[in-house]
């Protein structure tokens, strides 16, 4: 029983972080993804906000499963997600105003992220609370990792810095976090502009596909080697 649970949790995690990654495999939520990944901090901000929304919406959808009727499930998902996003936006504006000033513009963008409704439909409406919350967390985490990587790549190539404007998220300590890789780097505009986002995401997907291919090739070799012994 316990091993089953652990296996299930491992599966969900692997699915969210790699096999079925929201940004690299499902290619969902590209609009916010491409729009805000100019810097690593922006990417982190949108990632965290998406993660929180995913965990909450998955949990609520999972809790109301018994009362869900299939004909009206989509409008109900939309209602739930919209209410959550609005509530998060208002609460952040009131209690974490500094953070809100940075992330404020991204939070309404979360509604345009179809991965949230996709997880509600594909996972949370069929699974228990714990698994759904974990799925939301891992999907959000996988999305965040891609946002950070893409944001970091574009920031290094585009501005020659890392963690610029970190003070907006981490307070005054953030000023010391900014790393300038080269003082007289004049910047590479293409990386900062929208095409840079597309090229960057394309490269990331390509890298993931190469890794996957290598892995499956290795597995195939292992199986081939093992075959004679089996027969």
């Amino acid at each position, binding site marked *: 029983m316990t091993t089953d649970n652990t296996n299930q949790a491992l599966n969900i995690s692997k699915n969210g972080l790699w096999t079925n990654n929201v940004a690299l495999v499902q290619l969902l939520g590209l609009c916010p993804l491409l729009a805000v990944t100019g810097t690593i901090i922006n990417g982190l901000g949108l990632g965290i906000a998406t993660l929180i929304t995913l965990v909450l919406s998955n949990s609520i959808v999972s809790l109301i499963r018994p009362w869900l009727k299939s004909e009206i499930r989509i409008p109900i998902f939309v209602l739930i997600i919209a209410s959550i996003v609005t*509530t998060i936006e208002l*609460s952040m*504006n009131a209690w974490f105003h500094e953070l809100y000033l940075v992330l404020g513009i991204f939070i309404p963008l979360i509604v345009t992220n179809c991965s949230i409704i996709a997880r509600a439909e594909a996972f949370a409406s069929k699974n228990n609370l714990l698994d759904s919350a974990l799925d939301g967390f891992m999907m959000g985490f996988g999305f965040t990792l891609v946002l950070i990587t893409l944001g970091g790549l574009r920031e290094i190539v585009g*501005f020659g810095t890392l963690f610029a404007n970190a003070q907006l998220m981490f307070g005054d300590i953030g000023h010391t976090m900014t790393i300038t890789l080269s003082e007289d780097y004049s910047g590479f*505009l293409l990386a900062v502009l929208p095409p840079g986002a597309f090229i960057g995401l394309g490269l990331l997907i390509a890298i993931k596909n190469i890794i996957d291919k290598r892995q499956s090739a290795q597995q195939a070799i292992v199986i081939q080697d093992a075959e004679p012994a089996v027969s």
Partner: protein
Amino acid sequence: MNFSNLQIKGILITASLLTLFAASGAALVGVTFMQTEDDIKYNEKLTLLRKLNNIIPAESYDNDLLLDTITIKPSTLLSTKKESLAYRARKNEQDVAVVFSSIAPSGYNGSIHLLVGVKADGTLSGVRVVKHRETPGLGDVVEISRSNWILGFDDRSLSNPDDKGWKVKRDGGVFDQFTGATITPRAVVKAVHNALLYFEQNQKILFSVSQATDIKTEKLLKKDHDDR
């Protein structure tokens, strides 16, 4: 069409479920809104005040900037198409400075919104870009977070430099342009110059006695907060 009792029952249940969810969603948002409304208003005022204090140092005045406002009508010199607010700083009832919005209409990519602070003697207290759509990495150097260029306006006035000098260097003036981006600084320099002309012509009105805060003022305050 005829529905059986069972079908009608199903429809009713579905409809009430949907209503229930809509109502709870609205209730959640409503309650959160009421809970957070005061905090949000307070935060917004604080942020706006901090923005204004970047232009007029807090120690140079002793009145409440956000209460001592006046509505300015749309003006061609400021390129404003709507009414906007001017914030007045005074110390011991003496006029210190006024901060108002100005728009540079001819940026590389649409208009650039500025906040201009002018001291009572007609010298600039400071200028900040609050909203723009210039090319990232090129034109956005006018932002204070990207470079100190905008600080070059501090203490300038209509006589420092004279009319001919209120241009970028390429046009024979005194202000720097950037490699690869002349249009943006050119637009900002022109807008700041126009703002100074506006101040010269309207100084009396700009410092005149305060109006009562009404709903319209509240709305304009909110707008100035949202522009960043």
